[in-house]
């Protein structure tokens, strides 16, 4: 019973690694990779909620009667593509920061511009 919940544990371990990277890493690119891991953990969460034991992929066929839930698949499918697009926007901002300040380290950025 207790171990039936292991999918959530995997998700949370990944999520915490991602959060750790976002908070503790000073390099902005590293932060973004952390954000990506965090994002993937949410994807895995949704997909694992949609899984049905003994079910098959949700493509209709005459031999199957039990399918996994198609709705989370749809949501995550689009979320992945939106995720990469917003990630690209974040990377563009990083490149601009590098151009303006000459660094992508959080600590150095704060020294150069105490206001932010």
């Amino acid at each position, binding site marked *: 019973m207790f171990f039936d919940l292991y999918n959530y544990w995997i998700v949370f371990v990944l999520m915490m690694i991602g*959060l750790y990277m976002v908070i503790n890493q000073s390099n902005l690119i590293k932060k973004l990779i952390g954000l990506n891991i965090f994002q993937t953990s949410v994807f895995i969460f949704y997909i694992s909620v949609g899984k049905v034991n003994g079910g098959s992929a949700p493509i209709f066929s005459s031999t199957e009667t039990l399918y996994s839930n198609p*709705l989370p698949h749809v949501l995550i499918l689009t979320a992945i593509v939106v995720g990469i697009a917003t990630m690209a926007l974040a990377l563009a901002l990083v490149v601009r920061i590098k151009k303006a300040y000459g660094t992508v380290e959080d600590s150095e950025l704060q020294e150069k511009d105490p206001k932010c």
Partner: protein
Amino acid sequence: MTAIAIARTTDLFAAVMLSGIYGLVSASFFVALDAVDVAFTEAAVGAGIFPLLMLVVLGVTGRYEKTALKPQKAALMKKVAVVITMVITGGLLILGTMDMPAFGDPEAPAQQHVNIRYIEQSPEEIGIPNMVTSVLASYRGYDTLGEVLVIFTAAMGVLALFSSQLFVTRKLSVKIKKDDMHDHNVLRIVSKILIPLILLFAFYVQFHGEYGPGGGFQAGVIFAAGIILYTMLYGLDKARQVIKPGVLRVLCALGVFIYGCTGVVSMLSGGNFLDYSVLASDPIIGQHLGILVIELGVGITIAAGMILIFFAFSHQAESQLGEE
């Protein structure tokens, strides 16, 4: 497990490569969880576009993370505090799952409501076997339109941030020094064989999305990955001769336009916005037609948007190299 290695390494190049592997692993994870459509997308994005984009950015920002020479006490304290926060948050989240339904339980609430209708009715109502496609394109067409718009906006945002000369044809005499990549014979020949297959596969995925796993989103990213591979190997100048950035910009908007127009046309024919049943005399054929058209719109926008984003980045990287 790869995730931990990514967190530990200070070599950003290694981190990016590892995140590529991480993407592939999670794609296979999705296959194991029956989400074939998602796995497709994740394989193309997580293991394809994301690392490539990161690599280009690393070319601009530098490969190594700076580490403090001596571990300062404050940094150590911060690390301990962060880890403690992580453990507490993670613990609370796990505590929260105690009431959640067990993994794969068919009686779980998530399996009870709209899902039953999607699974039992959609083959008759929409007439296509892939339920993911019918939910994506028909039942939740509004959401998908919104998401396509988000991607379009993101691509425009990237272009706005790099207020670049991307659309101005550069004089060919300005030749950036050749780097090693352009002389790699093995890579060139292998990619010459692979790229047409990737593009062909993208078209297959695009038009077969109703029957098997696939659709506009997947096809768009796969197509973009093919073109991006080409750009990486042959340089931006050659790629821009093959596909003009100005054309891409128009295509990117055209995809959203096609999608929106489908909605308007179905409204004009007497149905609701994005209700395809009225597009043809037979509702099933109408649904088929509608889904085919909007998937095409989605595919065009995604492919053009991704390639445009990549072009903007690599143009930025090249002009940076040119200045130095």
